């Protein structure tokens, strides 16, 4: 039977094409402005962008110079916070995915993870101030700030690790149990090696989140300015305060009058660039490992 195009069909097909273009337009209208904005930021930052911007210290009351102390401070905070949240988060996910039964208590744990992920960053800051700075007497320090960041990144690491663990087929575990391995031996020998790529991707994605957050470190350990030697790799002690890129950007753009115009733009580009590079790495890694997966 031949398909005949009645006016009704034609109208419907036109409608469909129209719908497709409208939805495409909606998608594009989120992405195109972003590309334009990033392009604009880079263009404005161009006069300051250079390798020496990265390793120079701020000069003339932060009006000129580079971002070295902030860059190192951000690395300190990210490394320390993930050193805490990655093991705790992975083990928590192991518990939730491999050990926990479906009872009311574990449902409450799930609820807690979800709500922890939804706690506003400024409330994390208040918590860090109350718990780490005052109650635990760490003072305004790198320790306080990174612990606050660790708690903020924890729920997302738990969620992504759980997803990775859940993607290992159950038959793998059963095969291992059937040769007499205990639960932990199975996790160590079968589950973790088979899900490590997903776990790592989740953790790397949190590197950029920890690097970008400002509010949680603002009142727990990050400062506007700290004198640091140019190119000094270990300028901070753990009980000291530090500068951080995100905080530096906030300071430059709102608190310091008369900054050379391109400096805050360059700081924003450095922060944005490093976050995007880290995330792109994680995404590429994930794609590569996914393509090698055999099940």
């Amino acid at each position: 039977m031949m398909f005949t195009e009645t006016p009704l069909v034609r109208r419907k097909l036109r409608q469909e094409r129209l719908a497709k273009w409208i939805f495409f337009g909606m998608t594009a209208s989120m992405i195109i402005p972003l590309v334009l904005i990033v392009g604009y930021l880079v263009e404005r930052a161009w006069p300051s962008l250079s390798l020496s911007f990265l390793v120079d210290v701020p000069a003339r009351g932060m009006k000129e110079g580079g971002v070295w102390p902030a860059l190192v401070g951000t690395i300190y905070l990210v490394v320390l916070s993930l050193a805490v949240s990655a093991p705790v988060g992975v083990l928590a996910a192991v518990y939730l995915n491999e050990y926990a039964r479906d009872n009311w208590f574990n449902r409450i744990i799930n609820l807690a993870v979800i709500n922890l992920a939804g706690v506003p960053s400024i409330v994390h800051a208040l918590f860090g101030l109350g718990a780490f700075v005052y109650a635990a007497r760490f003072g305004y320090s790198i320790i306080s700030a990174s612990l606050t960041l660790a708690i903020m990144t924890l729920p997302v690491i738990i969620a992504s690790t759980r997803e990775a663990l859940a993607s290992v087929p159950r038959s793998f575990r059963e095969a291992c149990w059937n040769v007499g391995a205990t639960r932990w031996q199975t996790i160590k020998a079968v589950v973790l090696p088979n899900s490590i790529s997903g776990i790592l991707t989740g953790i790397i994605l949190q590197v950029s989140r920890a690097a970008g957050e400002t509010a949680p470190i603002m009142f727990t350990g990050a400062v506007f300015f700290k004198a640091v030697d140019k190119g000094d790799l270990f300028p901070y002690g753990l009980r000291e305060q530090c500068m951080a890129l995100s905080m530096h950007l906030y300071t430059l753009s709102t608190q310091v009058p008369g900054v050379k115009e391109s400096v805050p733009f360059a700081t924003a580009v450095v922060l944005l660039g490093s976050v995007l590079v880290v995330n792109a790495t994680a995404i590429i890694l994930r794609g590569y490992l996914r393509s090698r997966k055999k099940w």
Partner: protein
Amino acid sequence: MGDGFGGGPASPGVLNPKAEIRKPKEIRKPKEIRKPKAEAASKLGRDMSTPQTDRAVADGFAVRRATRPAWAVLGERALEVLIYLCGISAIVFVLGIFFFVFKEAFPILGNKQFSLSQFLFSEQWHPTSELNKRYGVLAMIAGTFSVTALAMVIAVPFGLGAAIYLSEFCSGRVKETLKVVIELLAAIPSVVWGFIGLTVMSRLIVKYTGAPVGVNVLNGGIILALMSVPIIVSIGEDALKAVPDSYREAGLALGATRWQLVWRVLLPAGKTGLLAAVLLGVGRGVGETMAVLMATGHAVHIPHSPFDSVRTLTANIAAELGEAPANSDHYQVLFLTGVLLFLMTFVVNLAADLIVRGIRRK
């Protein structure tokens, strides 16, 4: 995980470590059994080659038993306790957050000069005034809601539109690329969004609308919309993916166009999931701090138009906590604002979670 995960992994007859610890020396270890077992196990991992085996004859069956040194069994126990502790850490931290934030805020509730109804329903915010201190956050609540509402008005149609486009209208390379871009969009730090609002968006707003200041509800709303779109897209796409393919096939078999399918079948079928996506977007909007701090201006008053500057609850804490001396009234009120925010996002996230859970159960 209710499907037998709770039970032991191996049947008790095969592996019973406790029995072995008691009398390891009585057991004879024939070598001909040990070797193949170790070889088979070594494929699974190095640690599997350690169990020694013995042969016990019971009821005519040869039973192989794996024995492990006591320290290994104890070590494993200890590790499992550690795993359990990490497992419950999320509860500890949520309670800890509420406890510590509330602890700092608590003294103000007993303060005679402070009343909770004034806190919630007054728009007078004069925390540093000498004579007439006023702690009313109504204006900030209005600020939070106006910015979040505007953001949702922009982000919900665009986010859901993009989710529909991703899940129904494109496939293969285009889809993968768009998903990656949206993931990158979600990764942009909020302080960079704030900076964009402060420098790029505010100039555009002044130029095209003629508003006297560029940092206002409109600016914050647009920035917040761009920030919450990725979360709406990804959760919304999941919700559409959860609609069974048989629905689509039935629709197509009836001769529906894709648009009819989306409008008549997928949206009604996936509406709870899409609602959850919107709620998570709202949660993000209410809790967002740095971007709204930088993009909305700093005026404490109830906005009358999108071109008014406002201050949100989060921005208020971020802006004033640094100046409030520890344990002063001002400081305690800011923590009380934190409790309020915590409860607000708690309710929103709980609602979203219940909706998502309801879908899964179906």
